[in-house]
């Protein structure tokens, strides 16, 4: 850190208080893809697929399948950075410090953003989250006509759905 930045940060300390500085410093020092990124991706997945009377996505391990996709890691890192920046602009330390309503607003803002990384992050979590969550046997079992179509076929194909 150069001297001018150091002085600038302490100037901020006077203006905004130590908590704000701490938020910025933790952002600055965060590892590129580690536990915090995983925690945030997990939180976003939980938020997007809460279950509503059924098990939520994280209870079914959907987040683990998403974070296990190495091709998606840089997108996740950039997306989490964007969400954390959004949160700090709202006065929170990071995305994880937000309540549910603010988290939804952050995710919505990322999706609507002109920032391609942010938008692609949400699109990808939604895409892989939906595919994984709604393919879970326990979720499919809660909906009609979701089982394998063979070997029985659909003997009732001419009738109103059950």
């Amino acid at each position, binding site marked *: 850190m150069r001297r001018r930045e150091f002085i600038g940060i302490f100037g901020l300390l006077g203006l905004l208080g130590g908590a704000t500085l701490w938020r910025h410093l933790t952002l600055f020092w965060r590892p590129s893809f580690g536990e915090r990124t995983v925690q945030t991706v997990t939180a976003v997945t939980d*938020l*997007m*697929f*809460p*279950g*509503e009377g*059924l098990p939520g996505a994280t209870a079914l391990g959907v987040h683990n399948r998403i974070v296990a996709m190495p091709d998606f890691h840089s997108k996740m890192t950039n997306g989490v950075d964007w969400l954390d920046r959004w949160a700090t602009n709202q006065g929170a330390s990071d995305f994880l410090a937000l309540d549910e309503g603010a988290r*939804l607003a952050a*995710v919505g803002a990322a999706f609507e953003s002109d920032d391609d990384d942010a938008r692609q992050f949400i699109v990808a979590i*939604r*895409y892989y*989250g*939906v*595919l*994984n*969550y*709604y*393919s879970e*046997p326990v*979720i*499919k079992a809660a*909906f*009609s*006509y*979701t*089982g*394998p*179509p*063979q*070997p*029985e*076929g*659909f*003997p*009732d*194909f*001419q*009738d*109103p*759905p059950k």
Partner: protein
Amino acid sequence: MKSVADWDAVVVGAGAGGAATAYGLCQRGMSVLLLDAGPRFDAAVDYPLTESEWDTRDFPEKAGSVGSVTFAPGQKLIGVEPLLMSGSKGLGRLVTSGTRWMEKYHHVRGIGGTTLHFTGESHRLHPDAMKMKSRFGVAADWPFDYAELEPFYVQAEALIGVAGPSAQGARWRSRGFPLPPHPLSYAARTLGRGAAMLGLDWQANSRAALSLPWHGRPNCNHCGGCNMGCPRGDKGSADVTFVAAALATGRCSVRPDSPVLRIEAGSEDRVTAVLVGHPGGTIERIPCSHLILACGAVETPRLLLASDGLANESGEVGQNFMDTLEVIVGALHPDPQHGRRGLPDDAICWDFNAPDAIPGVIGGCRIYNASAENELRGLSGFALRAVSGWGRAHAQSVRRWWGHSLHVGAIGESLPNRNSRVDLDPDQHDQFGIPLSRISAWLDESDVGRLRFMAAKSRELLAASGAEEIFESYSSWDWFGATHVFGTCRMGADPATSVVNADGRNHRWRNLWITDASVFPSSGGGEAPALTIQALSLRTAEKIGKDD
């Protein structure tokens, strides 16, 4: 080097055309070697419809079953076409680049070819669609008429066990379909009520799926999964129909995993052999008395062009490429439908199928219950595409609307133009060093006009059926995802403007024949091509070897 052929004929490609040709030749007592670049599929093992995760899988890919092609840059999209822009409520717009997205040529290599994956619609061409040049001034005429092809349609339908209605308008029949039509599904009847309100005829589609047991195969149990491979064998794919019948004669040898790399030409205007590639790079030379190409409208011209431009005296090999002109619209109905129950694409409207049926545009279309082609086959696909957003509202909407979707599709005539072609990619090669096919596809204004009509009619039908909210629409305007392709080795009487004659024989090379959709001079008004390919193949098989 071996110079004597072990078989009377070598057929390259074991899909709709090659399998029917092999069968026709074997029926005449000829011995046939049927080669395919792809593998043999085992219906009981390979197809996913009995698996719990069936809805996350597609038609299986096996080693060698997917050929590579490349695409010339997509056409620049001009203007705003609100009815034609592809996308869904859940995923947003599919194409935002401003150019047509050249996504995929849907093609299966293997014993049975793309019929393994096809829905199984079994259509005869509209008779007028075979006279597009003389009657309407576009494309080219077929060198014979519907009456010439009709007996071969009858033969093909009998072997497959096609189930269909008693009449299909202009496409007259000398004999009824072998099997009665399938009853319409509940969702198809919902659409039928809308069609009736619009004054449209809405009838059972003719299908290569058995409505009753036929020649040892069971009847269809209406699982809706034709595109993922039929594990029962009731779908009339070429492997369980023509290939099985050819093998039963004892005169056919089938060889999967045998890509033909090159055709060897000899003296006296005869081809002499094909070169087949094997894993590890070895090349096998197989002498031919007669060589029949049936690799489809993309791979057949590739093989000819890669054989030093064989059979291209006219310069027409690879030209006149015709695309799949298609629209699919999905909407939510207030009442549950669960439209996946039943035979896919089980109902159809032929009212706009004649070449002059669409006001202001030459070339027809058909409209149908598109319960298969949309790939909305399971809960996850529905949640992804039909419902936008996420969170509690998304979960509640998925629960509210699951099973309420209806889809209407339209497929229309694709007219040839000089910008649409298949040629060899100068930069991309396969594992044997053979250049890949490069597809250039271009839509003229008349194609776009036809697409607009198809989209508007599809939406009208959904609305008349009670569907209230359109949640997705896809069209060929901005998205190339062709399944039906035609025209690249056109059939005709004039050697200067066509590649093969009316019998399917090349104008120069006397023992070289083609039996796939590359010979089609016109595409038809949205008819599925497999049955016409098979009828043509049976007709060509009657000509081979008779006068030389």
